[in-house]
Each structure stands twice: as structure tokens, then as C-alpha cells.
């Protein structure tokens, strides 16, 4: 017991055995900590391919809530709310299923399929069309907030050109991680708008199909079966480990600073205040960052 206490003191408390500087603050320990964090990321990267499929993001997202929140934002800036169009929702659902089946996270599929194909396939004769995508969010509110924080996505959400909305929410395996994808389709038909020369409003970096042709309405194919048990969230586990590491170092630095100041220990090393400030910023950033991606 005393031996364990001694080892912990050696690791976290400045004393003679560690040259009056907690061992965890020594360069060798910092290198070990850094590589341990990198190693954890390597595990997370390779686990979906070679290990048990336990990575995933738990989510509770309803399409109705996404529409409600979107319309709330529009009404707040004096725009008319968007009308739910079931055809657009079917098309959005099909786009989400396509992403899971072909395992991609982009506006354009690896085979070159544009988002507008889904509008056309389901018989939606668009005059203007737009697409927002989100994944890994735990709820609708955080996804909508993320879109609003991005100028290009916000432009889609608050465009007066769109009259209708369709939402697809699909859950499944994307690159080995169980996740929920939200597909937000915006549109307006020729009947909705004043007939001027047709221009499709596009999502960022996506070129619309020039000649919309209505084909037979397809039915969305079933997405891959979701993982039944989600044990580890890659983001939350990384965040937890990061916060624990930074918190531990901050605590040890405070103790180290107080002890060396009281004992008037002079040593060659960095400034404790500077390290505290830098790691404090890292802690703040770790707390600010939230799970979820948008494109």
C-alpha cells in the first residue's frame, strides 16, 4: 500500500525522487501520453474493419422535429414556412439509403449520381432544389443549429426560393460506424414560382441536372441492418479521454506550481502559468466541440 502511494506521489507530486517535478510532467511522460492518445485513435480507426462492430452514435431524431425547427428559423427572419412534401421526403429517404448502401458521405455518390437524380426519380419537377446533409448528431436541434452556423447551409434553409421540404432520416452502418444520417431536401416546382428561366438552386459544390426527366417512381431500398448494440461512441469516448488527460495535467500543474513556489524550488523548465493557460484553452475547446458533421 505504501509502495503504491509512493509511486502515485512520484507520478503526481514534486519530490526528490522525481527531481522536484511530478513525473507525469517530464518530457518522457508527455511523449507517452501523446502516443497513447494517438494509439487510441488508431484503435478507433481500425476497429470497424478488424474488430467487433461496437462503434456508433446513439440518436433520437424525428423528421417532423427537423421540419418544425427549420420552419421556426424561417419564420424568425420573416419567411414563409416550408410545406412538407411527401414526395420530397421519399426522395430524401432514398438518398440516405443510397449513402448507406454505397458507403459514402457526400452530395455526389462515388458513381457520379447527383442529389437531383433522386428528385427526378420520384417525379418531383423542381424549379429550384437544394440539399443539406448531417450525420452523427444526437438530436434534431443540434443538427439544425449546425446547419445554421454554416453560411451555405443557412442560405439553403432561409432561401425564399424554396416552398417545400422533405426530410429523410436513415440509420445504419457508414464506414463501420453505426450512425444516423439526416437528408434535408428543399424544392419548389414550376407551379410554385413565377415562370422565368429555370435555374436550380444548388447545395454547395453540386451541379444540378440540366434536364429534369420524370422516370418511374422507385421505392427506397432497405438500408443495411443497423448494429443492434452500440457500446462506444467514437467522439464521446475521445472527448472523455481528452478531458480526463487535460484535467489530470491541469491538476498536477496547479499542485506543482504551489509546491515549487512555497518551497522556493528553482529548476530549469517551462512556466507553469503558461502551461496552465495553454491546457486551459485545450480544455475549453474540448468542451466546445460537439459530435456531428454537416456537408
Amino acid at each position: 500500500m505504501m509502495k503504491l502511494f509512493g509511486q502515485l506521489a512520484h507520478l503526481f507530486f514534486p519530490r526528490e525522487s522525481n527531481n522536484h517535478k511530478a513525473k507525469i510532467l517530464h518530457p518522457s511522460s508527455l511523449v507517452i501520453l501523446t502516443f497513447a492518445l494517438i494509439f487510441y485513435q488508431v484503435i478507433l480507426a481500425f476497429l470497424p474493419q478488424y474488430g467487433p462492430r461496437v462503434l456508433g452514435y446513439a440518436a433520437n431524431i424525428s423528421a417532423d422535429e427537423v421540419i418544425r425547427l427549420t420552419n421556426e428559423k424561417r419564420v424568425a427572419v420573416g419567411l414563409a414556412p416550408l410545406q412538407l412534401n411527401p414526395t420530397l421526403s421519399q426522395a430524401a429517404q432514398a438518398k440516405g439509403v443510397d449513402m448507406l448502401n454505397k458507403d459514402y458521405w457526400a452530395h455526389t455518390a462515388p458513381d457520379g449520381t447527383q442529389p437531383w437524380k433522386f428528385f427526378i426519380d420520384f417525379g418531383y419537377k423542381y424549379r429550384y432544389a437544394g440539399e443539406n446533409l448531417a450525420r452523427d448528431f444526437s438530436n434534431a436541434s443540434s443538427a439544425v443549429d449546425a446547419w445554421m452556423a454554416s453560411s451555405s447551409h443557412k442560405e439553403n434553409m432561409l432561401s425564399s426560393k424554396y416552398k417545400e421540404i422533405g426530410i429523410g432520416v436513415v440509420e445504419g452502418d457508414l464506414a463501420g460506424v453505426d450512425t444516423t444520417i439526416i437528408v434535408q431536401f428543399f424544392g419548389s416546382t414550376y407551379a410554385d414560382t413565377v415562370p422565368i428561366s429555370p435555374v436550380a438552386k444548388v447545395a454547395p459544390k453540386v451541379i444540378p441536372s440540366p434536364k429534369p426527366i420524370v422516370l418511374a417512381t422507385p421505392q427506397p431500398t432497405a438500408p443495411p441492418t443497423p448494429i443492434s448494440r452500440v457500446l462506444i461512441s467514437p467522439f464521446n469516448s475521445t472527448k472523455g479521454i481528452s478531458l480526463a488527460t487535460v484535467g489530470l495535467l491541469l491538476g498536477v500543474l496547479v499542485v506543482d506550481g504551489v509546491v515549487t513556489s512555497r518551497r522556493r524550488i528553482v529548476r530549469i523548465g517551462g512556466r507553469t502559468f503558461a502551461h496552465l493557460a495553454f491546457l486551459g484553452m485545450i480544455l475549453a475547446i474540448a468542451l466546445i466541440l460537439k459530435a456531428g458533421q454537416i456537408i
Partner: protein
Amino acid sequence: MKNFAKHLPHYLALFGVLIIGALAFYLFSYDRSFQTAVAIAVAIAYVAWGTVHHSIHRDLHLAVFIEYLLVAALGLVIIFSLIFRT
């Protein structure tokens, strides 16, 4: 504490850089490339601050420089691992 008061302008400059860095992360959430650039810039500024500060204080040694470098590297690894998991 005595050292802190003596070099208050140095620390104010460092705190300014770090606060701007944290604010940038908050204001440009979900902009990965910008956040990556901010993280690298702040880490470089931190190491530069340490080098200049110790140089002025005439106690700049290789061990001190490496210490700042390692703390900055640890911070970068933490930020990157979170940015690219979002």
C-alpha cells in the same frame, strides 16, 4: 506568482492569443479546415511565446524548448482527434 507579476505583459499577450483561439473554435464550429488552421497557429504561437519569453529571461535551454514543444504537440493531438471525430 512573483514571476507572473514581473512578466505580466508577456502573459497578457499569451492569454490574448489563447482566448482568440478558443473563441475562433466557438464561432467557427463545424468548419474543420479553419479550426485545424487555428489549432496549428495557436500551437506555433505558444512555442514561439515560450522561446521568446525564456530567451528574454535568459533561461532558454533545449529542455525548456522541448517541454513547450511537447505540451503543444499533446494539445494538437487532443484537438485534432476531436475535430476529426466530429
